[in-house]
């Protein structure tokens, strides 16, 4: 039972991070190496609004979303628009540069200490049958992940912008020809990916603490479920996250805490050896 709870909690966070990776890969066709930096910056921005300035929660959330949009806008119009038409390799390296830039901004602005975020409600622990414990924030984390996935399911399959994003991902010129403003779609893509990655960071901070290196720790860990599920498969994110989280929880249980990273990568290697495109990926992913 506690394995189940641990898996669900970890999988919720992994699924969000993996979703950010997959979303960027699907909408722009590049592996966004700044996903981890997004995760950390977003969480720190949220912390600034919530803890340092003690703004009301609605304004905190609005401020976090607006600053995410600003970052997305600058990223697309200031950087990636100018790189349009460059080989993929250049774009991926650009995301690496973006990651270092954001990390620099992060450590200059917020330093290198871990800290706690102001809590919207008191954390409590609930005891479940089979010696399992779950905290209120653990429940909230799982709930948020479920809401995000249901909402994005509706968003991508039924809304105008969602369909525009899918079309742009597959065929940018055809999309533009159909009257879709491709730049705007890319900005929205960056924005959603940023928001979802940093949501994972915020939830992680509530479950443990806001720490300066969580961008690397959680951000890079999130690519494991994305690879297992298939980098171009939104559908593959949840099973991928569950598999990786389960392997980690069991691996830690059997082999100790230092095995956490190792088990994740063993799962990735195993899946990639059997199905190189991930469990749900399509054969056309040949780029990374």
């Amino acid at each position, binding site marked *: 039972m506690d394995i189940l709870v641990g898996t669900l909690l970890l999988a919720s966070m992994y699924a969000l991070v993996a979703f950010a990776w997959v979303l960027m890969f699907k909408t722009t066709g590049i592996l966004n190496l700044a996903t981890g930096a997004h995760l950390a910056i977003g969480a720190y921005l949220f912390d600034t609004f919530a803890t340092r300035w003690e703004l009301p929660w609605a304004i905190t959330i609005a401020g976090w979303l607006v600053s995410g949009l600003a970052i997305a806008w600058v990223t697309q119009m200031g950087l990636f628009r100018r790189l349009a038409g460059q080989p993929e390799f250049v774009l991926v390296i650009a995301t690496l540069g973006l990651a270092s830039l954001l990390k620099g901004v992060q450590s200059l602005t917020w330093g290198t200490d871990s800290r706690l975020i102001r809590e919207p409600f008191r954390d409590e622990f609930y005891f479940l049958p089979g010696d399992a414990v779950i905290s209120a924030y653990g429940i909230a984390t799982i709930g948020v992940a479920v809401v995000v996935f249901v*909402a994005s399911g*509706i*968003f991508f399959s*039924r*809304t*105008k*912008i*969602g*369909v*525009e994003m*899918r*079309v742009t991902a*597959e*065929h940018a*010129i*055809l999309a*533009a*020809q*159909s*009257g*879709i*403003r*491709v730049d705007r779609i890319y900005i929205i893509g960056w924005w959603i990916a940023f928001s979802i990655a940093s949501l994972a960071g915020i939830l992680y901070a509530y479950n443990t603490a806001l720490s300066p290196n969580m961008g690397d720790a959680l951000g890079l860990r999130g690519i494991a479920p994305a690879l297992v599920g298939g980098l171009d498969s939104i559908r593959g994110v949840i099973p991928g996250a569950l598999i990786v989280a389960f392997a980690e929880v069991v691996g830690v249980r059997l082999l100790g805490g230092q095995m956490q990273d190792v088990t994740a990568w063993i799962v990735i290697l195993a899946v990639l050896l059997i199905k190189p495109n991930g469990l749900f990926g399509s054969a056309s992913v040949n780029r990374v």
Partner: protein
Amino acid sequence: MSHDSAIVLQDVSVTLGGNRILKNVSLDFAQGVTSGLIGPNGAGKTTLLNYICGIVPAVSGTRRILGRDATRLGTHDMLTAGLARTFQGAQFVGDLTAVENVMLGAHLRTRVNILTAALRTPAAMRSEAEIRARARVALERIGVAALADRQINELSFGDQRKVDLARALVTEAECILLDEPMAGLSAEEKDSLCEVLRELRREGGPTIVLIEHDMRVVSELCAWTAVLDAGELIAQGPTDEVLSADVVIEAYMGTGQTA
């Protein structure tokens, strides 16, 4: 002159990767007729189409679409300007069905946001149903209504072409540009597509500009034809005159070899 012209190009020069692809091309495609754009491979036909659609920028020159200056418009503005196109080789979104690909052409008219979609409001459902119905009509017009719900990447190349054309039609654009619609089709498929295009013309459908290699198709469909060779416009006029002009024959045969 300009109010009955669908597309007017003036002194258009395009450079790509340091190569001059188009050299001072001035062209006038009339409204309400089917015009051809021909020329040997590498003459710059597709580049010209891409310039008209705002995909490729020009070094110099202007373009007017349906009487309005379109020089500064971007690709996503073309549809509102009244222009739709198909692509060389069928282009589509592979994980959608045929009818959904056609709906893409009309998607600017949809009004579905996350709230109305989640709540399945009557307005959102109506908007989608209406566009789906129009897409089906367009498929029927092209003669592939039976394939509407098939996944598009399962269709034959010829059928994908037709779906591409239906996507251009459903936009109700006043002018559509077709980039080699017949390439890779069998003789029967060519005949049936020719018939569809002729039918469109008879019904007073959109102005059509057509890039084509098959001269039989060009002389059958196009009242007017322009010829590009090595980036320069070497002839334009009524199709039968253009096709028998010496410069055109020379461009296709190569100079010196015909003597």
